[in-house]
């Protein structure tokens, strides 16, 4: 079955590979993008991981702030997220004028916070992917999600950022302390609230050494001028992530713990209304015919050394033991979701070139009939 008619790509604008670290998300994203491009779609793949994994796999020396054409792979472009460039572009886009943009870009905290606030990586990733999709230059965009302890962080981070940029939160922390309570309702409840705020702020000072939170809040106040624009953009991004043309793949390996995490992540995706499109299971040992040592020795013939028969028997038994474990993992995935699991077999060597990506891509596309719909 070719990529041209795979239901994963049919009607899709955005494919997202998600899941725990170390299960082959980046390779899967690159292999899918390659298959898509080879079937004639103009395809861009975006990776976030700063370790340049995808760069390796695609044979690119370095990434830039725009997608780079991959040679010899159909209409395929690859891009690594550059946090600072994406952040700067966002500030410019959302600022009412250049002066407002400069106030933020020149803020000494901006340099640190634009790239290191918790969740900014995730926020920038969805912003960048939104820009790629919106540009209309690509038929399909493939997004490789950042590594995280909890895969769901990728989807919750943008909301966390918006929550902290909310004017009420920023003003509450940032209002000058003495003036803060003046001009406010003077009822008993309001006075109590004001007192609480003083205690909280004083305690925070002792905790953080004073200026830390205020500096952060003053920076966020400058930033919050863009809040409305951010929120609108965020709504558009959330809409994109939930669109019918978006496909979330959960990538996993067949190991028991990893499978459990993948199944849990699928449940969270479905619960939150994201379009889950199936599991990808990498590094699967396929079951082979079993044979005893005697049977293998007999099949080898009387002239073969006994050591060879023993080693072959051990290799076959080891492989089939792993195949049984992997079959259990696949069965658990299939029980969790009715869609066929895309299975990539264990290969003699890791994938680090286009040829290897093609092998993975073919495996990902196999065993899919047009009856499997999303």
């Amino acid at each position, binding site marked *: 079955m070719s990529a041209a008619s795979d239901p994963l790509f049919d009607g899709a604008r955005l494919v997202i590979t998600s899941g725990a670290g170390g299960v082959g998300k980046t390779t899967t994203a690159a292999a899918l993008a390659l298959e898509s491009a080879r079937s004639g779609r103009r395809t861009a793949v975006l990776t976030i991981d700063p370790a340049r994994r995808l760069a390796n796999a695609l044979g690119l020396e370095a990434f830039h702030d725009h997608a780079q054409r991959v040679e010899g792979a159909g209409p395929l472009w690859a891009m690594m997220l550059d946090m600072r460039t994406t952040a700067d572009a966002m500030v410019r886009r959302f600022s009412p004028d250049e002066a407002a943009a400069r106030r933020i870009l020149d803020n000494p905290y901006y340099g640190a916070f634009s790239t290191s606030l918790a969740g900014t990586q995730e926020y920038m990733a969805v912003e960048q992917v939104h820009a790629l999709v919106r540009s209309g230059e690509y038929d399909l965009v493939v997004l490789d999600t950042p590594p995280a302890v909890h895969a769901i962080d990728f989807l919750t981070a943008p909301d966390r950022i918006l929550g902290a940029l909310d004017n009420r939160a920023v003003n*509450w922390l940032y209002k000058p302390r003495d003036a803060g309570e003046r001009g406010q309702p003077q009822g008993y409840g309001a006075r109590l609230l004001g007192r609480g705020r003083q205690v909280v702020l004083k*305690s925070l000072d002792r905790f953080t050494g004073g200026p830390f939170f205020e500096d952060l809040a003053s920076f966020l106040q400058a930033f919050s001028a863009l809040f409305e624009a951010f929120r609108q953009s965020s709504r558009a991004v959330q809409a994109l992530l939930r669109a019918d043309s978006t496909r979330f793949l959960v990538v996993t390996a067949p190991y028991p713990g990893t499978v459990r995490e993948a199944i849990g992540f699928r449940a969270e995706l479905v619960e939150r209304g994201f379009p889950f499109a199936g599991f990808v299971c990498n590094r699967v040992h396929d079951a082979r015919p079993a*044979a005893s040592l005697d049977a293998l020795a007999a099949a080898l013939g009387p002239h073969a050394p006994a050591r060879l028969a023993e*080693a072959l028997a051990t290799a076959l038994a080891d492989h089939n*033991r792993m195949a049984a474990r992997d079959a259990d993992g696949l069965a658990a995935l299939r029980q969790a979701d009715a869609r066929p699991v895309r299975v990539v077999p264990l290969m003699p060597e890791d994938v680090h070139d286009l040829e290897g990506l093609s092998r993975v891509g073919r495996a990902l596309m196999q065993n899919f009939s047009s009856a499997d719909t999303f």
Partner: protein
Amino acid sequence: MTVPLSAALFDRRFVLVTGKGGVGKSTVSALLAAQSGARGRRTLVCELNAQERIPAIFGRAPVGSVVTPLRENVWGVNIQPGPALEEYAEMKLKVRAVARLVFDNPFVQRFMQLVPGMNDLLMLGKAFNHERERDAQGRPLWDTVIVDAPATGHGVTFFRLPKVIRDHVPVGNMHEEARDMWALLTDPERTATHLVSLPEELPVQETRELARTLFGPEMGLPPGALWLNQVPTPLFDAAGEAQVREGAPPDATPALQAAFDVSQIRLGREAQARAYQAALEGLGLPLVALPLLYSRELGPAQLDALLAAARAQGVP
């Protein structure tokens, strides 16, 4: 070039284990804990807000945020940022009600979630406090505290955090904590940071970058060993290997054909592992190779098999 393992490395009190996601940090943390416990040291192994893996390796149920025995001389805990923050706030702000007022405030919580690495710092701080715990006689409660650190990417930020805070927050509790924590992390008498890798392209590449960053001049953490996980043990002698590469005889039974096929995959992975192991030996760190066990489970029996393999390579 191999670097010998020094036995003194395993007398350090504060042990950190890091590496790329999925390379087996939890396995190596569990192994170091089992090894330390077997040497008669009271050992605490900490996971940080993790999908708990370590108790299962000892054949135990998840332990949550309560310090729980795992085997003789070995205890485990999964440090959670929420309880860690509450505990810390109470310790510093003295009054529980005030601590609650501050940290239960929804606006404060939003900011706390946003501050770079706040959760990581809190959890590291909690592990750090375990190192400082003393009993009624003033003796350390733990001889060894092992921390299964976050995966790299996150990992380097995690290790750099105390230094960043020490240098950027001039005064106050946070500054003092960060200063003391950084002093511990960089103290070769007390601390060692172990790296875990797999004999595969991308983990090896990241391990090389990580070793340069963590142990280089900028950060200067005292290095532990490099643990290469899932190394396939050679199965064939030279003649057997040559025959496998030639392929199965033309009249082979299906099972014999299958045995040749899987043996070729295995030889490919063995050769790849050898090349990557050689590449990592150039890093100048003592290297311990843990065998790929071809086992369905990772439990106490496999842990002991890995421990035996480590001991055969000089781990005391």
